[in-house]
């Protein structure tokens, strides 16, 4: 499919979506599963996160957690997996246990205490044969650089790090994957855990289809969150269900993305949505044409369209993405 045809299809999608009603400021990124769901729900941003690698370290981390800290771990690797090779990992289509991640955080002040716990898992992850070949090629380069003595290894570190980053990026974008997460937040009006009560919980679902060597990526996301417990206010957004779709295209000179997010406010039984489209076209290394269209304003049925150009004076190569 040529870029022109893809553009036409996307503009039709934009037109169709513009027929919907109001919008809000929720972005598709807000629906993405957080790396540590337990930490996100509490709203805390701990400076250090303990990552215990065995049960003994976990017990120490749990003691620290009660005092106010954050932990993140994968219990599958508490036992050394001597026979679980990288090849096994890459070819696992249902990596339920090897991808499970548990996160927890506590915050304590003189007057309050909170505890949040979250779980994230990737139950389905499929790489195409072509992508596995690409993975194998990078892996072989890394192995060649590792198959040296310690002096040679020191000289290869920069190259190994770069290749490891590339390999992780590829492994993070399977051809198709499903991710699930859930988190719970408990809070206490005192500075003890004795009075801890349920306050909020949330769940996330991500599905991504990223065809190999095909410029389009399709993403579907959903999120549910609600305040619970006796003190839960019945205010706007205290309980909601969000879902969204995203489409992105990246080529050498042209890239664009379109996203649609719908929110159902379950407290008020109302719904509103947001739609945006953004595109860039690289004319040369110094000039980029930009365009964006969006229905992004609550209670107002307006469409914002911006066309413009970005000029750069740097000699560095400009990337459109």
């Amino acid at each position, binding site marked *: 499919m040529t870029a022109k045809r893809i553009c036409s299809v996307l503009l039709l999608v934009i037109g169709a979506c513009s027929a919907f009603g109001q919008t809000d400021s929720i972005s598709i990124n807000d629906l993405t599963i957080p790396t540590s769901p337990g930490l996100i729900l509490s709203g805390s941003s701990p400076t250090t996160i303990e990552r215990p690698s065995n049960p003994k370290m976990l017990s120490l981390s749990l003691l620290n957690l009660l005092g106010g800290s954050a932990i993140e771990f994968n219990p599958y690797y508490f036992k050394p997996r001597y026979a679980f090779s990288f090849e096994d*990992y890459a070819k696992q289509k249902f990596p339920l246990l090897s991808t499970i991640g548990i996160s927890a955080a506590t915050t304590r002040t003189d007057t309050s205490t909170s505890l949040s716990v979250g779980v994230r898992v990737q139950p389905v992850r499929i790489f195409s044969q072509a992508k596995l070949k690409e993975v194998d090629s990078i892996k072989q380069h890394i192995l060649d650089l*590792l198959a040296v*003595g310690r002096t040679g290894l020191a000289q290869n570190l920069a190259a190994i790090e770069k290749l490891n980053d590339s390999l992780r990026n590829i492994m993070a974008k399977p051809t198709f994957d499903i991710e699930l997460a859930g988190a719970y937040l408990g809070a206490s009006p005192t500075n003890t855990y004795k009075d801890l009560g349920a306050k909020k919980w949330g769940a996330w679902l991500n599905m991504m289809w990223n065809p190999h060597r095909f410029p389009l990526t399709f993403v579907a996301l959903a999120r549910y969150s609600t305040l619970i417990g006796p003190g839960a206010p019945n205010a706007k957004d205290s309980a909601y269900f969000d879902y969204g779709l995203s489409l992105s295209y990246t080529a050498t000179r042209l890239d664009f993305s379109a996203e649609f997010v719908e929110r159902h406010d379950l407290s008020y039984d109302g719904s509103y949505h947001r739609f945006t489209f953004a595109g860039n076209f690289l004319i040369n290394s110094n000039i980029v044409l930009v365009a964006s269209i969006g229905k992004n304003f609550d209670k107002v049925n307006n469409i914002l369209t911006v066309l413009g150009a970005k000029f750069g004076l740097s000699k560095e190569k400009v990337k459109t993405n």
Partner: protein
Amino acid sequence: MQVKTRDDTKNLTVSNLSSNVILTITIGNAQLGANVLQFKGAPDVFAKGTITNLDLGPGLALRGKTLNIITNILDHNPSTNGVVATYFFSGCTPSASLFSDTVDNDGDIFSVSTDFIFS
């Protein structure tokens, strides 16, 4: 990126002197690793890279020799900093030697150098 190192010594008894000793090294925990093998006193590297069913020669000829294996393991798996390896020597006792440790930071390398002494 840092390299953590460890040096080990393991004693192996050749239990079958008439047959050849075969070596396989596996890297677990979904990490990436490669090896360099050299007999002590030998001028050249015996083998390097991924080691699967490598023929080390007749058991009788191995007695009294020391095989140094450097295994460099890259922490690729973001879910764990644990690095593990297994050395299988057919016709030797013990037939399997296990290595398990952790790197300090995500993405680091562990370099373990082990002298396997055959008797």
